[in-house]
C-alpha cells in the first residue's frame, strides 16, 4: 500500500507548478474570465512547446508517454488555478476516441494536428430536448452520395465558436430503437450551414447553441459504424465521467483558511480560533481529502489497466457535490461579505466564495449530472435493477 503518487509524479507536479507561476499571468486570468472562454491560443502554444498538450499520450503520437498518475498530478495543479484547459480537454478526448475506433486515415489526419495544438474539437451531444437522456438526440444526418446532410441543434457546445470540428451525435435511423439509430461524425465547423450562438452561464463561462442547417460532412469523417454511434458514445461518456473537482475544493479551502487567520470577529477573536469556524473548515478539509482519494483511486485503476466504471462516476459525483456544499457553507460562514463579487476590489479573498457559488453549480451538471452518475453507480457497480 502506498498513497504517494510517486517521485515521477512529484517531479512533474513541480514542473507544472513552475510553468503555471510563469505563464498563467494575471492578464491571462483576467482575459479568460472576461471572455468566459476556457481556451487560449497563446497558452495552448506554450503548452505545446513543452509537449504538455497530451502528456499521457505515447511518444510516437506526439505525447510524452506519462503514466496516469503523472497526468493526475499535472491535472491537479492545472485545475487548482482554473487554467484554461477545457478546449484542450475536449480535443484530446475526441482524439482519444479516434485513436480507439477511427480509421487509419482519420487517425493520420486528426491526431497529429490535435496533439500539435493546431485544431480545437468540441462536443456536440446534448440538445434542447435531450440532455441526460443523450441517446434521445434528434439532430438528423441523411446520406447524400458520399456525404451526409445534417439538420438540428446542439446545446452547450462549449468553445463551438472557436472550434475547427464538432464531434457530433446524430440520428441516422429514426425507425430503430433510440440507441440503435445513432451515428457519430467529426464535422468541420468552417462551413455556412453551421452557426454558433453565444450562451452565457452563471459562472461567466461562455458556451453556445450550435445550429446545423443542411451542413455537410463527408462519409470519410464518420467515426464508427452507421447506426453504431452508441458504442462510440459509451467510450466518450466513460472518459468524460473521469476526473473531478478536489483541486478546486482545495483552492477554495486555502482561501477560507487565509480569511479565518486574517480576520477577527466582533469580540476581536481571530476567526480561526472560533470553534464553529474550526469545525466547518475541518469538515471541508475532510471532504476534500475524500474527494482527492476517490479521484486518485480512479487514476490508479487506469494506471493498472482497469476501467474505473463505477469508481470514476463516484469521484465525479462526490467531488462536485462536495465543492457545492463547501461553497454554500463558506458563503454562510463568511456572511454578507461573501456576497461581494469576484473581481470587485472590496471582495473577500478576491471573491473566491462568490465565484465558487456560481462555478460549483455547473460541476454537478456537465459531464453527466449527479443523477446520471448515481444511476451508473447503482446499476453497474451495485448491480441494482434498471428503472422501469
Amino acid at each position: 500500500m502506498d498513497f504517494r503518487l510517486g517521485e515521477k509524479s512529484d517531479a512533474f507536479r513541480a514542473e507544472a507548478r513552475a510553468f503555471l507561476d510563469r505563464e498563467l499571468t494575471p492578464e491571462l486570468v483576467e482575459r479568460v474570465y472576461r471572455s468566459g472562454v476556457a481556451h487560449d491560443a497563446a497558452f495552448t502554444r506554450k503548452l505545446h512547446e513543452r509537449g504538455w498538450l497530451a502528456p499521457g499520450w505515447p511518444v510516437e503520437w506526439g505525447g510524452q508517454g506519462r503514466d496516469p498518475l503523472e497526468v493526475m498530478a499535472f491535472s491537479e495543479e492545472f485545475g487548482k488555478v482554473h487554467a484554461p484547459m477545457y478546449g484542450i480537454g475536449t480535443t484530446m478526448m475526441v482524439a482519444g476516441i479516434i485513436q480507439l475506433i477511427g480509421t487509419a486515415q482519420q487517425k493520420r489526419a486528426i491526431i497529429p494536428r490535435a496533439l500539435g495544438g493546431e485544431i480545437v474539437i468540441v462536443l456536440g451531444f446534448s440538445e434542447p430536448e435531450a440532455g441526460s437522456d443523450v441517446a434521445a438526440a434528434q439532430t438528423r444526418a441523411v446520406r447524400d452520395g458520399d456525404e451526409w446532410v445534417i439538420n438540428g441543434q446542439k446545446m452547450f457546445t462549449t468553445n463551438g465558436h472557436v472550434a475547427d470540428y464538432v464531434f457530433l451525435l446524430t440520428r441516422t435511423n429514426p425507425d430503430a430503437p433510440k440507441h440503435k439509430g445513432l451515428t457519430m461524425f467529426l464535422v468541420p465547423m468552417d462551413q455556412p450551414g453551421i452557426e454558433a450562438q453565444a450562451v452565457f452561464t452563471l459562472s461567466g463561462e461562455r458556451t453556445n447553441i450550435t445550429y446545423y442547417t443542411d451542413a455537410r460532412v463527408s462519409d470519410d469523417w464518420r467515426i464508427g459504424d452507421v447506426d453504431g454511434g452508441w458504442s462510440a458514445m459509451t467510450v466518450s461518456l466513460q472518459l468524460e465521467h473521469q476526473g473531478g473537482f478536489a483541486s478546486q475544493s482545495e483552492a477554495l479551502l486555502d482561501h477560507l483558511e487565509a480569511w479565518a487567520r486574517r480576520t477577527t470577529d466582533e469580540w476581536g477573536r481571530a476567526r480561526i480560533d472560533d470553534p464553529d469556524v474550526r469545525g466547518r473548515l475541518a469538515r471541508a478539509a475532510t471532504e476534500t481529502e475524500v474527494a482527492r482519494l476517490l479521484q486518485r483511486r480512479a487514476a490508479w485503476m487506469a494506471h493498472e489497466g482497469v476501467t474505473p466504471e463505477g469508481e470514476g462516476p463516484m469521484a465525479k459525483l462526490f467531488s462536485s457535490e462536495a465543492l457545492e456544499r463547501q461553497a454554500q457553507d463558506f458563503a454562510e460562514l463568511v456572511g454578507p461579505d461573501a456576497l461581494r463579487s469576484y473581481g470587485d476590489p472590496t471582495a473577500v479573498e478576491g471573491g473566491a466564495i462568490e465565484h465558487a457559488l456560481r462555478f460549483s453549480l455547473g460541476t454537478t451538471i456537465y459531464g453527466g449530472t449527479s443523477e446520471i452518475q448515481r444511476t451508473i453507480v447503482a446499476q453497474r457497480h451495485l448491480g441494482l435493477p434498471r428503472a422501469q
Partner: protein
Amino acid sequence: MDLRLSAEQEQLVDAFASLFAKESSAERVRAAEPDGFDRALWAHLLELGVVAMAVDEPAGGWGASLLDLALVAEQQGRCLAPAPIVETQVAARLLAALGTPEALTAIGPALAGERMVTLAVRPVRERVAGLVPAAAVADDAVVVAGDRVVLVPLEGNRTAVQNLGALPVADVTVGSGATVLASGPSALAAHSAAVDEWMLLTAGALVGVGARALEIGIDYVKERKAFGVPIGSFQAISHRLADSATAIDGARLLAWEAAWAADADPDRAPELAAMAFAFAYEAARDSTYRSLHFHGGYGFMLEYDIQLYYRRARAWANLFAEPGAVYRRVADRRYGAAGG
C-alpha cells in the same frame, strides 16, 4: 501509488473473516447481547494472537502495522464481532509506548490474555471516566487522570451501563487502587497518540459496519417487490444506496491512508486519523439508516439483522465524542490548538 493489499494482508483478512464467519454469526451476536461480549469468540481471538499481533516485537508482540490492524477491524465491523479487539490492541500498544517499569509489568499478562486491559478514550472528570469501552468485561483500564496515565483495576471500580449498541461499556471510578504508569507531557502525548490509533481502528470497524449494512440493503431491495417491480429499481432508493457506496469507499480509502501515514507520513497521521473517524462514522450512520429504512416495516423489527448494524454504528463512534468535537480535533491537528 498502490492500493493493493500484500499477500500477507490478504491472508490476515481471510483468517479473521473465516473466524468471524464461524464464531460471530448473527445468532451469536444476538446471544451476546446485552453485554456485548462473547467469551468463546474471545478465546479464539486470543489463540489467533489478536492482542499480541498489535505490539512491536521488542515488547513481546508480533509487530503488525496499523494498516494490518485496520483491516482486521473492518472484518470485525462487518460481523459486529462482540469482542473488544480495538481497545485491547491499542491499550497494549500504549503500555509498550509508555515503557515505564509499571507499564511493562502490565503488558505481559495483557499479551498472554491473562488480564484484559482496555483504554479510556476520554479524560476523567470528577474521578469518573465515562463510558469506557470494554470496561464492563475487562480487568484493567488505562485512564488519563490529570497529568497522569494510570492503570485502574476494574473490579469494584466500575458501573456497567446499558446502552444503545449493547456494548460492554462501564463508568469507571479512579480511586486509590490505581497504579500510576507514567506522568507529565510525554505520558499525555502517548495517550493522545493511542486515542488517534483507537479512532483510526474504529474508523476501520465503522467501514465494515457500513459496508455490510449496504450489502444487506442491496440484497433486500433487489428481492423485495412493490408495485410489481423490485424496489431497488426506484431511484429514490437506488440513488441513496449509490451515495452510501461512494461514501463507504471514500471512508475506506481515508482509513487506509491514515493507517499508511502512521509509518510513512507521521506529521499528517493524527489529522488523517481524526478525519477518518469523523467520515467513517457519517458513512456508517447513513448506510445503516438507509438500509434499515428501505426494509420498510421489517427494518423496524428486532428479528431483522439490519437493526444490529444501525445500533452498533452509532454506539461505537459516539462513545468518543459528538461529531462536532471530532471535527474540532481535526482542526487542532491541522491548525494547532485554538488561541484566544
